[in-house]
């Protein structure tokens, strides 16, 4: 039984994984056909993952309602919405188009609700910025100055302010304007940091993938070893 539970899945993962790597770089028709087939499989499995996701959500909220946990009323609302939208999408409107009930619900219920929730962030960010952006240390001061330049340099007011100062005090023309400073911050230090993160991520993905292919990393099979 140990073979079917441990070794066989590992062999399948290693063989398929290495074949996928080879087929990605090889123009051989046989390998290309296999690559296309595997990709179709991934898309089909992704559809099943969606279904599993819905059932998992329903189960989690069912438990919440059954136990009458705090805020279980929201779980009931979730069930009503899920059933209603599924009914509209599958039974009422086989072909979802603009002007129908499904799109009406999307446009006038879902969209305003999510937009409102997201826009509340502006208020909380302002409050958090007021309390967090303090020049306590040298590092914090550098971040504070950078944030201020970006905030003013990325809006038209920053360009207007820079132009005004450059016109009024000619000697300041040797200093770049606020939009140029903001642009430099984005395209040099911020990009360098971002690129380092991307490279780190890529190396990490390659390392983890190789560990899985060689059977060193086995946590995906469960059991934690």
């Amino acid at each position, binding site marked *: 039984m140990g073979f079917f539970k441990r070794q066989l899945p590992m062999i399948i993962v290693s063989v398929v994984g290495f074949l996928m790597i080879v087929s990605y770089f090889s123009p051989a028709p046989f390998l290309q056909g296999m*690559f*296309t087939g595997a*990709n*179709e499989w*991934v*898309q089909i499995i*992704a*559809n099943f*993952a*969606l279904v599993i996701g819905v059932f998992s959500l329903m189960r989690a909220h069912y438990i919440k309602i059954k136990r009458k946990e705090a805020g279980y009323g929201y779980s009931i609302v979730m069930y009503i919405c899920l059933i209603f939208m599924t009914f509209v999408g599958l039974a009422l409107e*086989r*072909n*979802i*188009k*603009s002007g129908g009930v499904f*799109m009406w619900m*999307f*446009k006038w219920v*879902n*969209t305003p609700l*999510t*937009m409102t*929730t*997201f*826009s509340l962030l*502006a*208020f909380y*960010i*302002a*409050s958090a*910025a*007021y*309390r967090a*952006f*303090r*020049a*306590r240390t040298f590092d914090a001061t550098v971040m*504070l100055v950078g*944030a*201020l330049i970006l*905030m*003013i340099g*990325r*809006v*038209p*007011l920053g*360009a*207007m302010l820079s132009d005004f100062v450059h016109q009024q005090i000619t000697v300041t023309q040797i200093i770049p304007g606020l*939009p140029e400073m903001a*642009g430099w911050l*984005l*395209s040099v230090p*911020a*990009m360098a940091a*971002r*690129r380092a993160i*991307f490279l780190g991520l890529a190396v990490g993905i390659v390392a983890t993938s190789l560990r899985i292919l060689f059977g060193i990393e086995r946590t995906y099979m469960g059991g934690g070893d």
Partner: protein
Amino acid sequence: MNIWERILQIDRRYIFLLIGISGAIPIIMSFSLPTFVTPEVRGVYNAIDALPEGAMVLVSFDYEPSAMPEMDPMAKAILRHIFGRGLKVVGVTLIPYGTGIGEELFVAMEREFNLKQGVDYDFLGYKPGYQAVVLGLGQDLKGSFPKNFYEQDTRTVPILKDINSLRDFDYMMWLHDDAYGGYGWIIYGRQNYGIDIGSGCTAILATGMYPFLQAEQVTGIVGGLKGAAEYEKLMGYTGSARLGMVAQSSIHVMIIGLILLGNIAFILSKRKPKKEPSG
């Protein structure tokens, strides 16, 4: 507790009120501010402008309704540019929400430019799998999407007659509020199938797109409401992005003012009071 310490511990509801007022006043008073076009936005505009009439453009609507205030003005400006130049569009999305967003935009453009679905544009809809979908589109578009969003057989849709893979598109506009599928459009779409990509993304994501711009993996970046306002300026009209930028400028100034006030209060509250002379 002195006045500076009180300022430091100001109730956050006052901050909410100030932000609300600073956002509302410019909209009510209808102020206007000049818009300056950056090279990143011009990169997308020029790429679309250089396409010959009838060229095929793929547009991926990969953003959620929460990002619509930022993304919709941008999407409209870009689609107006594309349809205004007589280019053909095929829409797709890697996220479920993208279907509603794409459909609404196409319907709006259909009315504005008197377009015909299937001839001037088509919408493939959504399919789960992120990178797998990008690879599928690159290998066999009609096999990957046997039916479009309108339940029509993609083999019979006139606009898709000569489109079999991502390689058959002249340009792609990626409208996104996240890196769905780990930048699959760039990693596979650009690198494997050679499609030129323009990025239209939320402001928060724009920073992350700069490495791709420098590596010429995207032709340009239209970042957030600011990018949308710049695109509107290039298109020669004032839409909701340019109007919204006034409110955004005002809120930015208010936040800067609050941060400066907080720092002044922080420094002054740390000062020790002068000792009274003894005796």
